[in-house]
């Protein structure tokens, strides 16, 4: 298997999020009201909200995996997410941690297709873990510090808080 085949395998996946975060995602992903001037700061596309939540979870170093019994929804297939360099940055971040979830790069070079499938599934599960942890963090802010979302810089401030 070559690199483009692996990219395709990952790209065909639809990362999932817990159903409980759907209202939050909808609230912070709309482009304001119909006049384009909403009360809250918001993202343009749902998958961008997902990418942002992933970064939050990654910075927190926390994961919140979807349990089998938990209701969940799927996102758009990963290969369609934009911008591509940021999508690749997320892939890079997960590859940097692949050993932590049981896959050394050198072993992947020798792995058969079944192992690669398992790797890809785990890769996406890890992504979901970080993103849902990010959603959990945002949900907590939304529920308890709702006013901060009136500040247009809220999503920058949240990142700054986690950096400091």
């Amino acid at each position, binding site marked *: 298997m070559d690199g483009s085949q*692996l990219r395709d395998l990952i790209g065909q996946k639809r990362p999932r999020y817990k159903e409980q975060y759907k209202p939050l995602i909808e609230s912070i992903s709309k482009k304001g009201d119909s006049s384009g001037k909403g009360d809250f700061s918001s993202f*343009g596309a749902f998958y961008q909200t997902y990418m942002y939540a992933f970064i939050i979870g990654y910075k927190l170093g926390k994961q919140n995996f979807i349990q089998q019994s938990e209701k969940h929804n799927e996102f758009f297939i990963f290969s369609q997410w934009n911008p591509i360099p940021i999508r690749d940055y997320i892939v*890079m971040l997960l590859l*940097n941690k692949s050993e932590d979830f049981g896959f050394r790069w050198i072993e992947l070079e020798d792995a*058969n297709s079944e192992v690669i499938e398992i790797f890809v599934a785990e890769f996406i599960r890890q992504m979901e873990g970080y993103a849902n942890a990010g959603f959990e963090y945002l949900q907590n802010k939304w529920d308890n510090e709702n006013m901060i979302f009136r500040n*247009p810089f809220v999503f920058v401030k949240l990142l700054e808080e986690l950096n400091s």
Partner: protein
Amino acid sequence: MGTIIKSVGFQNFYNYYGSFDENTYQFKEGINIINADNNMGKSKFYNGILWILRNRVYDSDTRKMENADSSYSKMASGKAINQDENFDMGVNITFINDEDKYSVSKKVQFRKNADGWVTNELLEVMQTVDNRDIPVLDMNDKEKIIQKIIPAELMNYALLQGETMEQIVDLSSRNGLSSTIEALAGINNLIEICDLSKDLSQRTKKLFNDKEREINSTNKKITGLIQERETLEARIATTETQIETYKTELSKAKEKKEILEANLMKTKDRERFRGMLKGFENEIKRLKEQKNEKEKNITSMLFSETCPWMLMGMREQISIFDQKRQELTTDIATQKAVGSPIVLPEGSPDVPSLQRMLRTETCEVCGRPAPKDGEHWKHIKMVLERPTNNSNPNRNNFNHFYSSIQTAVGAFALSIPKIDESVLNYREKIDELDDLISEKEDERENARNEFLNAGGSEIGSDNTDKQTIADYTLAEKTIDKKEGEIKKAEDAIKAWNIRLNQIETEINEIGTSKEIDKFRNFKETMSSIEYIFNNAKERIFDEILNSLEINANTKYQELTYGNLSAGGRLNFNKQADGTVQVSIKNVNDGELTGLGTGFQRMKQLSIIMAIISSKIGNKRFDFPFISDAPFSEFGDNFINNFFAIAPKVFTQSIILIKELYDPKSDSYLNDLGLKVLKKMENSEIPGTFYVNVIKEKADTTNLVTKNKPYVN
């Protein structure tokens, strides 16, 4: 005779929240300045004076004078009303008139009941005699004492609001002019004598006519001529009355034109400020849209392909990835190195030979001994154990995948360290837009105030301005028409007078008598008396006018002294209809045009000063001059000049202005304000100096003004 106001105090009156003690201004002879920005109580102060003197207040919402008793809820302090407890609202003026001291207070008690507020008005007047305050109880006496502050006939000159200054001295109005001259010269008796002599002259004329007809009753020729004369005289009388009517109409049209001329200037100002307002509003809208766009763009900046803010602080991950790629390369190389077969040259020993050589400790290739664990023995062992060719033919190759990712994110290695700076710059740009918006909003507010000062209304006044222009055109047409009618009537009278002279000659030629001569002499004597008194009246009128012209020009030169553009000379031109037109002439005696509202107001102020400082007979204006925003169209030079000459003209003046105010300065004074204050502190300018301040920001209904006395 005259008045000096010693103090003006307020209690819960508009912005002046609190007791009289907290809101009292002490005044002296000279100039008393109350310097305040917009909405800081200048016009409210002026309304306090109007309430006491005229029982009226100027309503800034309706832009009209209103009866005070229908405006109490607006006049009361918003803060006092909001506190929902009983309170009193009031204004107090203490003053000295001909060495007697008085205190006048108007108060309204606000009492709360189930239906809301109930009000009760009180008027308290006290006279201080031998240091004892004695209440004045009779209502007529109270009114007379209020009149002592400023008499009704002088209020037009003593109470001045910047906006209405153009309409104060209406020399173009016959009534306005004659009342001004009469006030200055005290020629009421002379006017009465003129009217009496005219009446007597007409009576003697009638008497003479009757006598002449009686004596010549048999002479048909003479009775015919007398009849014609009487008809002509009746026509002349009717036409003269008609001319008077035309002159009155002409005067009204001129008065209207003059007022509209002032309004026309304001119309132009309004148009200018309306344009500025629109400009600022568009600018603010554009800036707000820019800001809104920038704010909406913040989330896009998180995903920027060149400098994605979302990756702030994650630069090291690229290095980690790079390191992992290098490790993979090393691992693959090692694996290859370990896994690749060593191919021996042809004729080399096979495996069993090598095993034997180790056992016998002898190299069969060179025939020399190879002791166990020695260098040659180890070499034979290595050759025996060399790797065989067993590599995986289905090996993956993800290098291209990793490489493409590294290429995609590589540029971020440089941009991630710049994210903090990029966020900071972006914030600064939004802050700059915020600053610009508030700067433009301040400018818009100033333009709005100027627009309102120029008589603009929040509710579109475009139509009113159009009406002003239409009225002005109509007034001009009426003036032309009435002047034409007057000329035509005067020409007719002239022709009739020629015929009358002819009739007189014809009658004399036919015959006369001693008795008729006696009545003729009587008639002519009365006519001469009428002429003499009228002439005296005209002469006095002209003298006063001449004196006014000289005096007004002196004031005008003093007020415009040092101005870069020459203000010209005031020219008083007596019109055929008995009115006076004041125009501004240049050095060549031509009409000086293009002067701004400031110069026009100076013209009016000069005339007011001339009237007030005229010392005709024993009359001299000696009452306080109280003016709200007189300088709204003037520059620093004029204001300086005003402060220099006003004490010479007015014994006491109270000036409410904003031109010395600077909200950004600790002292609330601009450079000019500081200069004036210094002159007052050095007693170069006599008087007092107050600055109004608002300590807590609030909406207009809840403002609280406090005064800071700098010189008192």
